[in-house]
């Protein structure tokens, strides 16, 4: 039936395999090696230094500072985004006027480039021309911080923007899961006299556990990246208050030509991403509810 199928298989697979292998897999593999060298990028030969870059990493206070910032995002973003998204998804699927409108609108920011989002919010936070301060002023709130210019406030200010952008995406993601729940489950709950709140805890949440785990992993990966929005809004400042590992590795590699060290940070960050993804999947593992 599949006579001469290799005449099709090989030319169909080859271009994709070559491009993917050369531009994606090969650099990843090379990164592992470069992280073990002290390469400055200027010379062809790289001196193998073993794990020295990683030892230096452990003593680098800026590394720990950036990691700390990533971890703050890692804890706060999933918590806020998933709570809001789950709540909105539940409300929108359980019968509310304008459901379709909310669904379309809440998703809007997700299709915007993070650069556009960042520049837009730079303006909103801007102390003189921004609308945030004058809006809060309407409620008599005075002594407002300089937002992105204030080391104590900049990080939460950036986090708020990411929340603003992501809630709609996860809402739609949860809605898709909720719509797959057979209506009979809700009927049974209704007959049993469960109210909205009980229905949520006893029916919706357990059945959406798998979706929630996936959302957690996605958000964790996002929280450990944060490159574009940070680069656009603060470039890691003020005084490294919003510097995350991806920014720190970029600066090391491409600004200071410490390619070996920069790549070591990238590898460490990759291992951190991997570890957290596995940890989250482990910690949230439950027997799947089949339906």
């Amino acid at each position, binding site marked *: 039936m599949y006579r001469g199928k290799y005449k099709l298989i090989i030319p169909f697979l080859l271009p994709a395999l070559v491009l993917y292998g050369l531009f994606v897999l090969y650099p990843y593999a090379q990164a592992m090696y470069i992280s073990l060298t002290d390469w400055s990028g200027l010379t062809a030969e790289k001196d193998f230094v073993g794990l020295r870059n990683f030892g230096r990493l452990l003593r680098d206070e800026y590394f720990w500072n950036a990691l700390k910032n990533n971890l703050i995002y890692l804890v706060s973003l999933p918590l806020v985004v998933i709570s809001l998204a789950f709540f909105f998804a539940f409300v929108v699927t359980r019968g509310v006027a304008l459901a379709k409108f909310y669904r379309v609108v809440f998703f*809007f920011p997700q299709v915007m480039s993070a*650069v556009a989002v960042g520049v837009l919010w730079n303006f909103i936070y801007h102390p003189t021309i921004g609308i945030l301060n004058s809006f809060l002023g309407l409620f008599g709130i005075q002594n407002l911080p300089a937002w992105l210019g204030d080391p104590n406030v900049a990080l939460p200010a950036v986090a708020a923007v990411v929340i603003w952008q992501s809630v709609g995406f996860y809402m739609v993601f949860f809605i898709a899961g909720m719509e797959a729940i057979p209506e009979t489950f809700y009927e049974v709950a209704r007959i049993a006299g469960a109210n909205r709140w009980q229905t949520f805890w006893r029916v919706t949440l357990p059945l959406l556990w798998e979706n929630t785990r996936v959302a957690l992993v996605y958000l964790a990966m996002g929280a450990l990246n944060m490159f574009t929005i940070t680069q656009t809004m603060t470039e890691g400042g003020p005084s490294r208050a919003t510097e995350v590992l991806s920014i720190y590795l970029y600066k090391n590699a491409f600004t200071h030509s410490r390619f070996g060290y920069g790549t070591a940070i990238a590898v460490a960050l990759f291992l951190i991403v991997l570890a957290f993804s596995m940890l989250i999947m482990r910690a949230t593992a439950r027997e799947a509810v089949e339906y």
Partner: protein
Amino acid sequence: MAIEGTREQPVTEHTPLPSGGWERTKALFFRALMHLFLGIWAVIVIFPMLWVLYTSLKTDQEIFFSPWSLPRVMQWDNFFRAWVKVNIGRYFLNSLVVVVPSLILTLLLSAMTAYVLARFPFPGNRAILYLFISGMMFPVFLGLVPLFFLLRSLDMLNTFVGLILVYIGYSLPFSIFFLTGFFRSLPSELHEAAIMDGANQYTIFFSIMLPLAQPGLVTIGVFNFLGMWNQFILPFVLMSDRKKYVLTQGLAYMNHQQYYLNDWSALFAAIVVIMVPTLIVYVLFQGQIQRGLTVGALKG
């Protein structure tokens, strides 16, 4: 696949209100509260975008002294300045030059690969599929430094061709993952009948399978378009020649230079220029995007 499993119509009818006095008041109260929350979030989401839209038509004076007000006279000139003087027009074209071929080739190559992986059993089939899927696990920044030097050694730094090839490479894992599932879900009778008839394999693919796969291709096309149009980190590292900046880089650069240029209204106009294509694509293909999302979920 989730595409078939999802119910078409969401439950949007009102849950009936209980008739009892107190229960009814309570239900009404909660309904009002929900609308309040939804309404507040809707305003938080929409207002900043509207604000950018109408601010892009104001003068610098107005932007500074009355940040909330609508433009007194529409300053279309802001767009002209952004487009010509600050080169947003050039960056826009650069983005098109990169994204259009990347998108077409990604669709073609991932459809070819997915078709073979979904429909032809051969030793190593699974391994190749997993090899592609594993690419979704790696974060982009891990490969940045080696990628930079790889392109440099191929003389492809600061070239559109280089960036296009990289975009395709990075788009393949998700596209192939998605389309393999899609090709598997297509009915096989037509395919088998065509093979029995001895039709040329290429003819089968291009004139039977590709048209059948159109809905999947549209979904994956929309996702890739948004991803490529909004991509920042790859061009940021690989394209340092300012004449070859893509739109996201151009906007970031403009934002960075504002403190010297002081042309705020043109910057607002530039945000609008970068936003509009993605919003149009979103409005047109809203259904595909939302359906495509379910594939990422484990039930997919």
